[in-house]
């Protein structure tokens, strides 16, 4: 009996959790004149979306976000694979100190260094560029630790065999370790992509022009251009435009997403 009641309550909690999303979708697809009415009718329209798409340069924002997210992960893929391999397989002088430096990035994330990093960017003349949005994230301690863990589980005989075949260490990394560590790369990629797709404060500070703004900044500026509450239909439609790709990706690859985010807690 108790069990049934508590299960019932948890199903209700799950329903409550989905309510904000359902309500957002509901509002976005309803004609504007009904946005503020509480009546439940089944009018359906796409007008809000076409309106949003023509009112603000969301195509540019989309391209920018995709370029930024892909650019960051492409560079992280290289830097993190290399560093992780050094940590996992080579004994070198100063290993502990370098390790501490990587730890420092996890303890003091770039998110809170917005002001000093802005100064660095200004000195490099990278303000208001896509590269400027990306560059503080090119080294990823999270990625390095994740890949290092994975590399360490690979049997050492593998590289010995490869060495006998005439591979040098550089080739061992790219031909053996990277392909075998695929699950770790998927986790790394999902966490990195969702993080940077959603990042807001840093691109807001760095960018100044439409050509470089990502979706999150575009959405915020679009929403702020209205009086509060006056344009719910448009703002909910714009919100859906921004969150849809990740949300769909998550729905399809639910298990991979959840497993990946477990690693994102690594300290």
């Amino acid at each position, binding site marked *: 009996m108790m069990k049934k009641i508590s299960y019932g309550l948890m199903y209700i909690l799950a329903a409550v959790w989905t309510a904000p999303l359902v309500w957002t979708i509901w509002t976005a697809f309803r004609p504007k004149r009904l946005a503020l009415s509480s009546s439940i009718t089944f009018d359906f329209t796409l007008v809000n979306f076409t309106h949003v798409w023509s009112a603000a340069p969301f195509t540019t924002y989309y391209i920018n976000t995709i370029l930024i997210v892909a650019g960051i992960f492409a560079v992280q893929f290289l830097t993190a694979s290399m560093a992780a391999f050094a940590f996992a397989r080579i004994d070198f002088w100063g290993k502990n100190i370098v390790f501490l430096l990587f730890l420092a990035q996890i303890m003091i994330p770039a998110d*809170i260094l917005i002001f000093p990093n802005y100064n660095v960017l200004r000195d490099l003349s990278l303000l208001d560029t896509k590269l400027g949005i990306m560059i503080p994230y090119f080294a990823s301690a999270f990625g390095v630790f994740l890949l290092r863990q994975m590399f360490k589980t690979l049997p050492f005989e593998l590289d010995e065999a490869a060495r006998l075949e005439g591979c040098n260490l550089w080739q061992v990394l790219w031909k053996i370790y990277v392909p075998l560590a695929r699950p770790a790369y998927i986790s790394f990629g999902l966490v990195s992509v969702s993080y940077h797709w959603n990042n807001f404060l840093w691109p807001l500070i760095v960018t100044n022009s439409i050509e470089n703004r990502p979706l999150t900044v575009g959405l915020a500026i679009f929403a702020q251009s209205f009086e509060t509450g006056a344009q719910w239909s448009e703002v909910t439609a714009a919100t859906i435009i921004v969150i849809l790709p990740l949300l769909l990706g998550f729905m399809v690859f639910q298990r991979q997403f959840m497993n990946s985010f477990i690693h994102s807690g690594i300290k």
Partner: protein
Amino acid sequence: MGTAARRKALRMNAFAWLLLFPSLIFLLLFTLYPVFGSLKLSLYQADLGTPEPYFAGLDNYAAMAEDEVFWKVLTNNVWFAVGTVPTSIMISLLMAIFANKVMRAKGLVRTAFFYPTVIPMIAIGNIWLFIYTPDYGMVARVLEWFGLEGPNWLGTQSLVMIAMIIMVLWKEAGYFMVFFLAGLQNISEELYESAKVDGVPAWRVFWRITFPLLMPTTLFVSIIALTNSFKLVDHLWIMTKGGPENASNLLLYYIFETAFSFWDRGMASALTTVMIALLLLLAALQFFGFDRKIHYR
């Protein structure tokens, strides 16, 4: 050591440092240098009124100690942490226990709890701005069914923080749930079976088996939740701008305002330094205090 061996060691060292070189450049430029840069600039008077910054010792810190807004945002941050950390842990633990056992619609339940994790904070701000809108928002509508008139959540100083905390709980609980789900799967089924054979009531099973064995996960999640309470500020930009009267303002958002609205570079650096110190304190707490109780794979 023979020359050949030494040469080999040298070669391996060079190779390792070459592998690390790209990462190190970016770490030096965007982690190490900014930390020391903030420390240095925090000792300078550098605002719009001083075209040529000059060394001012600890003046910025003295001004900070006198600054009511600084103490306000710091207390807000403490309340924000108090409001989000223990509650999100309780809710996410409940979610995990349920999502672990439930038979019907297992995937759907997990999706329902977890999906806010992949939505950007700025979009969440938009959505919840509408939820909290007086008269027309979702909360106001629900209260209306019960014949109640809801307050102006975001416009009232005493309510705005609670409203933010509820929103962040919604955002984070599902994320923390996956850690507890992983933790639950590590507890051996035999323990539960023998408890069942002995007829131990469910709540005692929870307090004697589940809760103690999940302790490492709980501590681990609390650290993430605590760090997040310093990092999550995007929603403020869209919802309240820290208002009314700084009632919802947080330290990181205050740094943002000081740097990019007031252009007080010295003070922004001093505030950043305080933030760094707080985060290092958290890290120290984790390494020296909790770490022995947290097991890693």
